[in-house]
């Protein structure tokens, strides 16, 4: 039914910088194209400012997602607001695309309790730190919604390294067997900290793993926001129509450190990183929009300024917040706490 991908199977919508290969995605109008751009810029700005804030000691260790924005924005824009998102730490700021204030996410990275939210308020799971453990959650949520007769679906993000974990396997299989409306979005940045994809799997394409679960697997260019968007939209349509899960592999190459605590010089090929940085996804989409006549310098500046302003307000608000009350150690551990919980 489903066969392994050929090397040439790599979905693309945005063409070369001279416009060769540019396409439009059916049903995505100009307003949506611009909305996608705003999201990309918001994420990029969040990320770049966070690295600065970290170096200034204003936030803690931070997982950098520079050049992963096309995957994140492209996928989330294909969802309805009642669809659920399950992020890993790599998608920590994904809530921004649902209107979550930057402060919340900054506080998460500042280790402040106001950085945690009610998933039901945003249809957004908590940031998952243990690799791949969120995949079964997403499968359960999607399946559970279907059992209740609701037609919302779920999207789960995870990395290439995550595909080696048992939790990934058990989660995707559960979703497949239950025919759960789930989109599995693999951010294949070809590194798990210092471990290259070749030491992670012998599969040629991670999307090929779909075959073993009897579901469709597609691979797209992870730096092409529209390709990600189109693939996700197709997967969401299939899920909502009762067709079950889809595995999407968004292929790119990590062009920044794993996080602020990581020094990749020990293990990466710097020339390759430099090359990848030159192909970064926001500029690429910006040029596409300019070619399409949808964007000019003024609008670019306005969107960037708005994002910067949001971040300034976000960090100011975070820093203005009172220190966390140590009482919060106990407040939320249980709904009905055991009597001896405070013994220590």
């Amino acid at each position, binding site marked *: 039914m489903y066969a392994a991908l050929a090397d040439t199977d790599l979905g693309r919508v945005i063409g070369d910088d001279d416009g060769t290969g540019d396409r439009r995605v059916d049903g995505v109008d100009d307003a949506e194209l611009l909305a996608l751009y705003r999201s990309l810029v918001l994420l990029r700005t969040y990320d770049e400012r966070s690295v600065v804030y970290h170096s200034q000691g204003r936030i803690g260790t931070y997982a950098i997602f520079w050049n992963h924005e096309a995957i994140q924005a492209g996928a989330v824009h294909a969802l309805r607001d009642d669809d659920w998102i399950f992020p890993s730490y790599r998608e920590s700021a994904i809530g921004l695309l649902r209107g979550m204030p930057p402060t919340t996410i900054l506080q998460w990275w500042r280790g402040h309790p106001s950085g945690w939210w009610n998933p039901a308020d945003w249809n957004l799971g908590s940031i998952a*730190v*243990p690799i791949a*453990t969120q995949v079964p959650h997403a499968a359960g949520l999607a399946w*559970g919604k279907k059992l209740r007769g609701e037609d919302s679906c779920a999207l789960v993000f995870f990395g290439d390294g995550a595909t080696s974990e*048992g939790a990934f396997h*058990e989660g995707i299989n559960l979703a497949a067997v239950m025919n759960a409306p789930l989109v599995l979005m693999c951010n294949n940045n070809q590194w798990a900290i210092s471990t290259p994809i070749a030491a992670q799997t012998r599969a040629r394409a991670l999307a090929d793993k779909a075959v073993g679960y009897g579901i469709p697997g597609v691979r797209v260019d992870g730096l092409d926001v529209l390709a990600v968007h189109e693939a996700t939209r197709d997967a969401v349509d299939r899920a909502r129509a009762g067709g079950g899960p889809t595995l999407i592999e968004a292929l790119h190459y990590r062009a920044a450190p794993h996080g602020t605590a990581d020094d990749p010089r020990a293990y990466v090929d710097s020339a390759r990183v430099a090359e990848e940085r030159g192909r970064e996804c926001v500029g690429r989409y910006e040029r596409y929009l300019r070619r399409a006549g949808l964007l000019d310098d003024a609008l670019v500046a306005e969107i960037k300024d708005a994002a910067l302003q949001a971040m300034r307000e976000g960090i100011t608000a975070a820093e203005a917040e009172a220190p966390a009350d140590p009482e919060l150690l106990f407040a939320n551990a249980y709904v009905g706490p055991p009597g*001896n919980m405070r013994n220590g």
Partner: protein
Amino acid sequence: MAELTLLEAVNDALHTELERDADVMVLGEDVGRAGGVFRATAGLLERFGAGRCVDTPLAEAGLLGGAVGLCMAGWRPVVEMQYDAFSYPCLDQLITHVGRYHWRTGGRMEFPLTIRMPYGGGVRAPELHGDSPEAYYVHTPGIKVAIPSTPADAKGLLAAAIRDPDPVVIFEPKLVYRTARGEVPEGDYVVPLGKARIAREGTDVTLIAYGAMVNVCELTAEALDVSCEVIDIRSLRPLDEETILDSVAKTGRVVIVHEAPRTAGFGAELAALIAERAIFDLQGPVLRVTGYDVPYPYWTIEDAYMPSVERVSAAVRSLLG
């Protein structure tokens, strides 16, 4: 009131709770078509349909992780782990998520899931069908743990677990699944978590146990010419400290009994509680009679592993001798 086995009482609780609350669902390996390998879930599939009694793939971490997602979708999942030792793959989800997710949402989202499993030894089964893993669970913050020893408590504690807003793990002593028989109230019946049961009153020594070991303590009490108070603690977290401390204040002597390996087992916690809060009541050392710090053995020698009337009696005698 009906006279039921412990296993039938579990089945009764599941029927009652699924009937009572349309959000309750049961899932696990072989819980549907077969009605569970012990038949604890028999009849649920027929009565409540394949949406509320679900045979899952053979994957305990996916099962428990899936249940976390089901909670988010508004369900109250009751997850069966087929056996004690086959629950271990789920510990990662238990520790990293089940016990923490409520707290991680600032207390705003609830995870009212229940895990239930047969546990314990003495049933002449192959390797890895006799473990007592309660310490792994009760050491995990965010989790509650209860262990019934009677049919009525098996029903009442399971109902309490299912209705509880926090994640609760119920260990069902498989040794007495079919041998413990007793009156079980019909319909709605809840035994609140956190209340111990005085299985037998006495004045000379306090025997503290749970699960199948309660019966061993009761038999010891009968066999000995000593007035033993037997406490069935029923709920390991929340723990009824008062009942324990009151009894120790009365008797001044304690023997704690469990099947699990001794080191850092739940008996250590009970001993530590007493050593902290009742030290001046004690007339002797706090003794534990437990499984040994060795792998649960092949079954021809399991009786030598399991705490017995002889071993508990010896401990009692050493306190009074």
